[in-house]
């Protein structure tokens, strides 16, 4: 039985930063980025990127490590199609210039990636050297990930004072730490939290206030659900990677859990059942017809098309909503805190940090680590965040370029939801070694609730199946 380790969010003393980047560094970087904002883009990639990264190069020189120690090597970075790749790709030439390391991207669709990587790593492949990690529990249990604490603590490989871990969100630092052995197995590269987005025009027209509680959310969704527009869009598809994420936020907010601290199935508690019931009711009565088949894509599209008054999903949607070329609601979207459940002062939204990890069988571990350090460093985070990437660094989130690209109100709401989120509750479920089997059953329970089935019956049945699967 796994015991909860209360110290797992603590960093070892030797990882505490003893010197931060100077104010001058960031002023310099901000000035460069402000100038960059007026320049145009070419072919989806910013033409200013390389030039400005070159100007930021002196910041890398301040790191007390030899960036050239793995010069001449090539590493493969694997992942799925994701803004993280899109936003850091323009700066890779600068990385090669700095380190002499060539980076080859292997980018696949979601389905291809999550199908191929377990087989590839399970077969002992040495590549990708660095890969996007989505199921930490599976990867750690299977021994696919290299423990990173040694790399952090090696002064030849990492200048901790320059890297400035104090600038990284606590949740992002805690995310890749495996509770059972308190070892860090990855690095968080993005931050997102379940966030309420509302169409202000529709709310004003109906004379309604932005909902603060779950009951108000239900009432508003029902009131705004007319023939022409949906009251709310939420994921409903019965798949472990679909309805479970926003549904998980409901369960946590009602005081429940999917898996408890001891690794036991917990989504058939009274609190969790109330949450699953409410999720189904809101979708059924306030959502569009056919919401039971919605994935994040449908939620994003419908809200962006002005076909829904509300949505409750990833804060990262803000980048798309704010883009007038894509979105019809760029000027009228208001972001807010996830509504709280009855008897609770605030909600516990679901959250997520995409992580990168090092392949335990990689033949280029030194080069892989240098890349991981570079891509999550303060200067690179500043650059990628200026393109709208929600990184894990406070300095990047507070930079003017990021708030311009992401939207200041969206950034504020996202940060608030992120700080209310309980990373432990997420990790117990999503990083469980048998997460696939557990979340599949949670998805079936939530989807059945949307379809109006007897919640107690379907939840109990799903929980029993999940228990059997992990026994």
């Amino acid at each position, binding site marked *: 039985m796994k015991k909860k380790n209360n110290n797992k969010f603590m960093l070892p003393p030797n990882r505490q930063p003893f010197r931060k980047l100077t104010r001058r560094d960031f002023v310099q970087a901000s000035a460069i980025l402000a100038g960059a904002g007026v320049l145009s883009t070419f072919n989806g990639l910013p033409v200013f990127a390389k030039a400005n990264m070159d100007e930021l190069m002196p910041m890398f020189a301040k790191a007390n490590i030899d960036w050239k120690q793995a010069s001449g090597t090539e590493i493969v970075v694997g992942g799925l199609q994701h803004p993280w790749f899109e936003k850091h790709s323009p700066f890779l030439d600068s990385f090669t210039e700095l380190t002499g390391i060539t980076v080859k991207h292997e980018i696949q669709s979601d*389905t291809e990636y*999550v*199908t191929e990587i*377990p*087989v590839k790593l*399970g077969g002992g492949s040495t590549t990708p050297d660095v890969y996007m990690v989505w199921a930490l529990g*599976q990867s750690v*249990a*299977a*021994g696919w990930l290299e423990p990173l604490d040694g790399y952090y603590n090696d002064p030849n490989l990492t200048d901790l004072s320059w890297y400035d871990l104090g600038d990284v969100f606590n949740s992002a630092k805690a995310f890749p730490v495996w509770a059972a052995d308190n070892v860090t197995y990855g690095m968080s590269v993005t931050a997102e939290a379940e966030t309420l987005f509302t169409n202000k025009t529709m709310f004003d027209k109906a004379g309604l206030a932005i909902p603060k509680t779950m009951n108000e959310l239900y009432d508003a969704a029902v009131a705004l659900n007319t023939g022409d527009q*949906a009251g709310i869009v939420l994921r*409903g*598809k*019965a*798949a*472990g990677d*679909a309805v479970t994420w926003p549904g998980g936020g409901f369960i946590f907010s009602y005081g429940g859990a999917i898996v408890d601290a001891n690794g036991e199935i917990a989504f058939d508690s009274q609190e969790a059942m109330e949450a699953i019931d409410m999720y189904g009711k809101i979708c059924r009565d306030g959502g*569009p*017809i*056919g*919401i*039971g*088949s919605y994935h994040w894509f*449908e939620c994003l*599209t*419908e809200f962006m*098309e002005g*076909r829904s008054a509300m949505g409750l999903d990833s804060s990262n949607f803000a980048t798309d909503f704010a883009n007038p070329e894509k979105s019809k609601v760029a000027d009228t979207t208001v972001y807010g805190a996830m509504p709280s459940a009855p008897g609770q002062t605030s909600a516990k939204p679901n959250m997520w940090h995409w992580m990168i990890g090092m392949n335990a069988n990689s033949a280029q571990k030194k080069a892989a680590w240098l890349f991981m350090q570079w891509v999550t460093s303060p200067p690179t985070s500043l650059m990628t965040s200026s393109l709208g990437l929600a990184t894990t660094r406070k300095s990047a989130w507070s930079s003017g370029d990021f708030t311009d690209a992401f939207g200041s109100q969206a950034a504020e709401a996202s940060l608030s939801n992120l700080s209310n989120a309980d990373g432990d509750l997420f990790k117990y479920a999503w990083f469980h*070694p*048998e997460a*696939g*089997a557990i979340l*599949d059953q949670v*998805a*079936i329970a939530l*989807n*059945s609730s*949307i*379809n109006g*089935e007897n919640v107690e019956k*379907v939840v109990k049945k799903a929980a029993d199946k999940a228990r059997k*699967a992990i026994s």
Partner: protein
Amino acid sequence: MKFVNKKNIFIILMLLPSTFLLLGLTIFPFVVGLILGFTDFSLIRPQNGMRGVGFENYIEIFTTEEFWISFKTTLIFTFFAVTIQLILGTLMAVLLHHNSKTAPIMRALYLLPLAVTPVAATFSFRMMFNPSLGVFNFFLESSGFAPLAWLSKPDLALISLIIVDIWQWTPFIMLIVAGGLASLPNEPFESAKVDGAGDIQIFFHHTLPLLKPYLALAVIFRIIDAFKTFDIIYVLTGGGPGISTRTLNLMAYRYGMEYLELGYAASFAIIMLLIIILFSQIFLRKTNIYSTKVARL
């Protein structure tokens, strides 16, 4: 050594590449799958290795409700999809079996669904089935009907999947039947006409019986393929609502690729294989396809 002569060496050399490919890509994975099916091998617990569990996986599969629900779903999907495809494909082939100027163009157009990548086509259908923004509900509402929740009501979701499969694979039946029609002898049809038979009589009493081996071939291909349909279901419903569209293949995928329980998933796949072999052997014997002689040149 009579066997080692130039001719035999040539034959062996010619056969070697395909033999290696067959061994490497078909026989070897099959044997591995067969062995895996008798173990509890899991990618989550690779340190445990491949521990033999005998028929435990198979017993567990046959005693779970999920297996029988997904088996029933697979049968319903296969039966309706293939039956409708057979009727439509045959009709289309017969209608286009003449020498008008438009027939070749129409045949080419009808074959287009076969040329489209299944996943790309399925994503297009996902948008078309979208209840709010999709074209299907747009036409329904424009005609005064209520919009439908195509993919989120259990019965309708299965029908929607069957519709997509029909769209994609009817041309395949048409292609085989059209080939069959082109090779049929003229004499029976001419004599039937001389005897005063009408087109419908000729179709049911001559065309269809003569096409029987071609139809059987098309049906066996399609049944095997429909039985293991995956992409359409995975993209459109993911097996939902609830578990109402979970087929055997989708279950095998989930156990293998999502739960990473490769031993259990391999047992699922072997069961599917046995069902297909059993069915196809019965079908081939009943239709007598091996002994049917057609179209003398």
